[in-house]
């Protein structure tokens, strides 16, 4: 168990709802759920996950901390916002799902090898580095995330698509050398570091 996680367990004891309310983006909305299930039925990834949003909310209220934080389901959000626009209690469900996923990742308890989790990390690194995302680098990083040989396999599998894009000038192989970046990368990086510092303070990771 990671240190952050241990600290969180100690801090909140059995009050997982409170933990979520304080530390998860829009977590204070969780208690407003009335278990109607419209989110569960609206999610395009519905047939694929184990826990619907509404069930996740009930699990939070019932103190099922481990089950929630290790759930694969919270990583399956496509950000389509169908749940949000239909929720009769106007819960920002998309954001809460993102928030739970982020929190689980932060504590280091999110499911290992969860593809979206890995992708998200790569994406963010890519972003922080230049202030903009470089699609080619990003894609390559994703394909090679499970090691070199798997990366080659992935790449071969997708080469038709990649070639098509290259042909259509929508994937530039030259990007690998240079590519786009913001001028004020330094400022952006400082700004992001500051944001994290503030948020950590607010959420009680640091005092």
């Amino acid at each position, binding site marked *: 168990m990671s240190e952050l996680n241990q600290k969180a367990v100690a801090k909140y004891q059995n009050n997982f709802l409170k933990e979520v309310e304080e530390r998860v983006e829009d977590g204070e909305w969780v208690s407003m759920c*009335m*278990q*109607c*299930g*419209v*989110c*569960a*039925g*609206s999610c395009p990834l*519905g*047939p694929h996950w184990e826990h*619907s949003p*509404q*069930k996740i909310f009930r699990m939070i209220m019932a103190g099922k901390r481990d089950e929630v934080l290790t759930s694969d389901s919270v990583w399956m959000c496509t950000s389509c916002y169908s749940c949000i*626009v*239909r929720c*009769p*209690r*106007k819960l920002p469900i998309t954001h809460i799902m993102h928030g739970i996923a982020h929190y689980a990742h932060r504590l280091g308890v999110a499911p290992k090898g969860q593809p979206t989790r890995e992708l998200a990390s790569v994406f963010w690194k890519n972003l922080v580095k230049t202030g903009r995302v470089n699609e080619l680098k990003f894609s390559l990083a994703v394909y090679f995330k499970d090691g070199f040989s798997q990366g080659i396999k992935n790449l071969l599998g997708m080469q038709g698509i990649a070639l098509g894009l290259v042909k259509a000038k929508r994937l530039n192989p030259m990007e690998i050398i240079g590519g786009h970046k913001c001028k004020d990368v330094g400022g952006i990086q400082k700004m992001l570091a500051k944001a994290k510092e503030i948020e950590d303070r607010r959420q009680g990771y640091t005092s």
Partner: protein
Amino acid sequence: MTASIATSQTILVVGGGISGMTAALEAAECGKQVILVERNATLGGRTALLYRYFPKMCHPTCGMEINLRRIKANRNVRVMTMTEVLDVKGLRGDYTVKLRLSPRYVNSNCTACGECAKAVDAEIDNPYEYNLAKTRAAYLPHNMAYPMHYVLDPSIIGTPDADKAKAACKYDAIELDMQEEIVEIKAGAIVWATGWKPYDAARIQPYGYDRFANVITSVEFERLASPHGPTGGKLLRPSDGKEAKNIAFIQCAGSRDENHLRHCSRICCMASLKQTHYVREAYGDSAKSTIYYIDIRVIDRLEDFYLQVQQDPTVGFIKSKVAKIVEDKESNLVLHGVDTEGYHRYATTHDLVVLAVGMEPETNGIKLPDDILLDSSGFIEGSNLPAGTEGIYGAGASSSPLDVNRSVQSATAAALRAIQVVHKTSTVEGVR
């Protein structure tokens, strides 16, 4: 503008549905002078358009018959239909109310013989059938209409149809030059009983009321079930007239929803439970009703009714707010969602979907006296004036989403409050 036709001892009741009729009658049967104004061409309001009441499964028109008989027998009540309140001025005990009387184009000579309807060709959507059917543009609102007079739809005025109607009437009942009138009346107290309207189902977009012919509302379903309705009481679906045997009832269609109505409309659970009876009545064991709900809200003795429906093998319950409806090629409807009791995903096909639409107060959309205080949903909560200085009282579904029984209680209470005002005013004036 014509002269005043009432005094400060008069109680004005606004709205001629069951609440308004009740308030008017209860006050009148205590000996008070009452003016009952109704915007439509007939008294009766929404309950007159229902097939049966829960939980007794009796007919709303039965009670209406009694109330109409009370009105016919009571000289203290003056009924004004096609009349709307434009403005209320003054204070408790001394209101001046401006009324607009829309032309009916038919006077009280009308004997309801029906010759004018036979003469006209134009048809209009019948508002008393929730537009599920057409009616001739000269029409009697319904069989229980009071006054029992025909109406000409304004759309035919100035057309040859209007002249045909006039020519067909042997009793000089049709007055094509009838004009809108504005009158002012005095009143000591006002009971505001303007009732409710079904929430606009088209706004609940995932359910496709505006796109799918076989998604209808609970009030429309009442008309389908009524032997006086457009299908003669047969449960036929609108798209193809096929018998609708497998029917979904979707609860909280608009209610308990911050995108629509914040409040719970109270009546819808019982209304749907009642409507499962219609389906069973029509098709026996081959009927199939499914209720999709969040919480079944049937309080007090109504629980008996719920229990009875639960025991009906043709009725199923799914705890779920339906996420969306898709129409298939045969115009059947596929409901998508998740049964939250234990999490079961479904995609179920139904012949017909009935949306248990919420009650929106009719106060949303009409001009109200300034001193009426509304709650967040637009129901009349009370008065802006200090306690004891108010003289306008909400009654029935204008004050809260109420069922008929509670509306009548509320209207009776409002009638007493109105009587208190005219009593106190008269005491002060030394009239009593």
